[in-house]
Structures are given as C-alpha cells and as structure tokens.
C-alpha cells in the first residue's frame, strides 16, 4: 500500500523549546497506527502537525501527495482528507447533534442541506445515536458527545482519521462505547487511523503498528503484540509498567 502520510526529518519547536526532534514517520493507506508515550512526549504535537493545526518548523510533511511547507496554500485540502477527534470532544455547543455532523459536509464539501443531513443521520445511526439527533451537546453524556464528534469527523469523508486521546476525558464506564465505535470504523471501513491513546487493549486488538514516543522522538515501533511483550528500551518497559498497573 502507498504511503498516505509521510514526515521527513520533521522538527517542531514552540519558541525555543523543540518538542519534536527529527521525526521520520510514514503511514500506509488502511493502516491503524497507535501512538503511546508519557505526557509531554510529543504524541499530540505529532498528529496536530499532520493536519497543520501546528505548522512544522523544519523538514517536510506529505499528506495525500500535498507537500508542506511547499504547498501551504493547500492546508484546507489536507484537513478535508485528515479528520480529527479531540480529547475534549469540541462539539459546537450551539448546534444539535445532527447539525454538528451535517456542518462539515454542507460547509466544507458544499453539499446541499438535505443531502448533508441525510449523511449526518446515517452516521449518527452508525455510532448508535440515531434517537439523539436533536439534542444539544450539553444534553449528552461524555461518551455520547465523543461518538457525535467521531460522526462529525467522518461526515466529510476523510481518507485518514486521527484521534487525540479520545477516551482520556471520559468516565470509565463510557470508554467502552467510544472504543467500540472506533473498532468498528477500523474493521468495517478499512479507514486509515492514527490513534494517540493509553488504551493498551485497544492498541493490541486493532492496531497494525504501535509507536512509542518519548521526549519528542519515536523510540520504538512494531507490531503491537511484539512491542508490548518485548520492549527493548528501559523507558518503554517503565512506561508499560505504569500503564498496566492502572
């Protein structure tokens, strides 16, 4: 499979602090990549650079054959192809569930309202929230909000879906429903996914590749089972010990 995302020698600094050091990283079409690592290791920054919420400082980023920094004018095109689900859901609080989901297709893909609403209804049904379409985000539980957010990201039919710690802000009993939706997307649609998470069970079950980041570098990567069973570095052993005990 061809690479849909490629980072070549990418560095990212905030002011004088470099948070990503010479990252080389590629994702194939259809691949599910899980990124783990301690907080502050640069996992979020890595995926935020991929859809240009943060601009890379040096190096090159290629997404769906659009090159950054050479083609900075095409950032919106990148974002149409790379959806994102956030830790804090970030649903538009003044729009109902179905309006949230229909917003992307009608504004970014310029579909007519009726068609966008149809798509939105189908996606809400797919994430198990058909009967909640007229609720405002404030009336939904965290798990429900995150499922709406996943439907919203899917609605613009991106080629890649990225998740930035999608279950970290959820109560424990709601984590399962969100992970189930994510699993079904990975299994049923063959969607390319990059998932930053601490859910090791999810990584083992769904991930094609596991990446361990520490201090702005990719320290280890491989098949999730192998990486978890035979961590090479002390830092990963240490990290896995912490995660498992929680």
């Amino acid at each position, binding site marked *: 499979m061809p690479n849909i995302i490629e980072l070549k020698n990418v560095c990212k600094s905030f002011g004088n602090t470099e948070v990503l050091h010479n990252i080389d990283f590629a994702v194939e079409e259809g691949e599910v990549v899980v990124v783990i690592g301690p907080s502050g290791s640069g996992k979020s920054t890595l995926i935020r650079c991929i859809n240009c919420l943060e601009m890379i400082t040096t190096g090159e980023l290629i997404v769906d054959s659009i090159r950054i920094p050479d083609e900075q004018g095409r950032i*919106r095109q990148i974002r149409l192809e790379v959806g994102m689900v*956030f830790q804090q859901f*970030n649903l538009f609080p003044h729009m109902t569930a179905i309006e949230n989901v229909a917003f992307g297709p009608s504004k970014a893909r310029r579909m007519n309202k009726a068609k966008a609403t149809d798509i939105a209804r189908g996606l809400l049904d797919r994430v198990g929230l058909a009967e909640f379409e007229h609720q405002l985000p*404030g009336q939904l539980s965290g798990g429900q909000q995150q499922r709406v*957010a996943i439907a919203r990201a899917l609605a613009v039919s991106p080629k890649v879906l990225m998740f930035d710690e999608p279950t970290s802000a959820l109560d424990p009993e709601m984590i399962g429903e969100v992970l189930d939706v994510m699993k079904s997307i990975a299994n049923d649609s063959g969607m390319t996914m990059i998932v930053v998470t601490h859910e090791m069970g999810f990584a083992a079950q769904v991930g094609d590749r596991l990446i361990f980041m520490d201090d702005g570098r990719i320290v280890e990567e491989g098949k999730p089972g192998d990486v978890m069973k035979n961590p090479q570095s002390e830092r990963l052993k240490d990290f896995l010990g912490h995660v498992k005990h929680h």
Partner: protein
Amino acid sequence: MDFEFSVIIESLPALFEGAKLTWYITILGIIGGMIFGILAGLGRIAGTAALGEKPHGIFIWVSVLIRYISGGYVELIRGTPIIVQAMFLYFAFPMLVKAVTDIERFRIEALTAAVITIVVNAGAYIAEIVRGSVISVNKGLLEAGMSLGISRFQLIVHVIGPIAIRRMIPPLGNQFIISLKDTSLFIVIGVGELTRQGQEIMASNFRALEIWLTVAIIYLMMTTTLSMTLRHFEKKMKMF
C-alpha cells in the same frame, strides 16, 4: 411642600419632543456604534489565533497595521471624555477644516455632531466587548472547525459569531444604556434632547422638583425598554 402635578402635565409635550430626539440619537448611535465596534473589535485581533488561522506573507503586515489602527482608535476614544469629543467635533473640527482646506463655511449640525459622537464613542467600547467575547470562545472549537476543512470566513460566521454574540448581550446592554444616558451631555452643543428640554422648561418656571423628576422617569422608561429588549433577545437564543 408645594408639588404641582399640573406643571408635569404642561411640560410633557415638550419633554416628549426631547425624548424623541434622545431616542433618535441613541438608536442611530447604537447602530453605527455596533458597526464601528464590530470592525474595530475584530480589527484588534486580526491575524491572531482567536480568529482561526494565522496569516502568512504580506497578510502578517496587513493584520499588524489593522491591529494598530483599531487599537489606536479604541485608546484615543476611551482615553478622552465624551463631552470633550462632542465639543471638539462641533466647535473645533470646523476650524480645523477651515485651517487646512479652503472650505470657508464648513460646519456640522449639532444633531449630526451628537450622532457621530455617540457612534464613535460607543464603537470604541463595543470594540472591547466584541474582542473580549471573541477571544473567550474555546479555541478547541476553532480547531474542530479547521480540522473539518472549514474556511476561516465560515468559521467566523457559523461558529465564533453565534457563540460570541450570546456572550456580548449583557455587556452590550450596559453600553446601550450608557450611550442613551450620554446623549444628555449634548446639552452643551445645544441639541434639544430630553435633558435640554427639561433645563429650558425649568429656566422658565423654576419647578425643579417636578421637571427633573419627570425627566428622570422618562429616562428610566427608555433605559428599561432597552434592557427588556436585550433580555428578550437573550431568552430567544438557544441556551447551551
């Protein structure tokens, strides 16, 4: 105490004439002030992350220029008394025009000067209300919009705007009421608004108690109308 109710009845027609003028200046002032305020408020945060994408290339400098112009306007107006602004516009500005151009008989109508003063003055304060409301919108919502591939313009219209407007209503109510009351200062440039009408009646019959009580009640009725209108808008908006 000698309180003549008939004095009030007699003065009402003239006071209502004044109140009409007060309303007129206030409504035009508020409408113009909103336009100035929205432009200057957004101008003060042009090219910052509060409005989504940061600009690149020449637009960086364009946005810096816009920020300086808007900021200068707000500081200049907030930093000087409104009564000085009104007098400057009405008395000094025509002289300035005469001095730098050949126009001999340039003058500004008192009423025009009053409306312009309210527009410009309210605009500066509303700019800060707009700016504050916009920067208070959760940045995560902008990122969510951007990551859907929504353009900056659509983001402002459909996400930042609706959320910010709800937060603007209480402080805007404040400003509208202040602007209405500020029209009473135009007594100094001879606009026949409510306060001036009261003053004139008072000067002829010396019934201070009756007249100023009536004037105060009419102001109160007008400001209450303003606050109730805004409350109505606030309630009509979908709450979240």
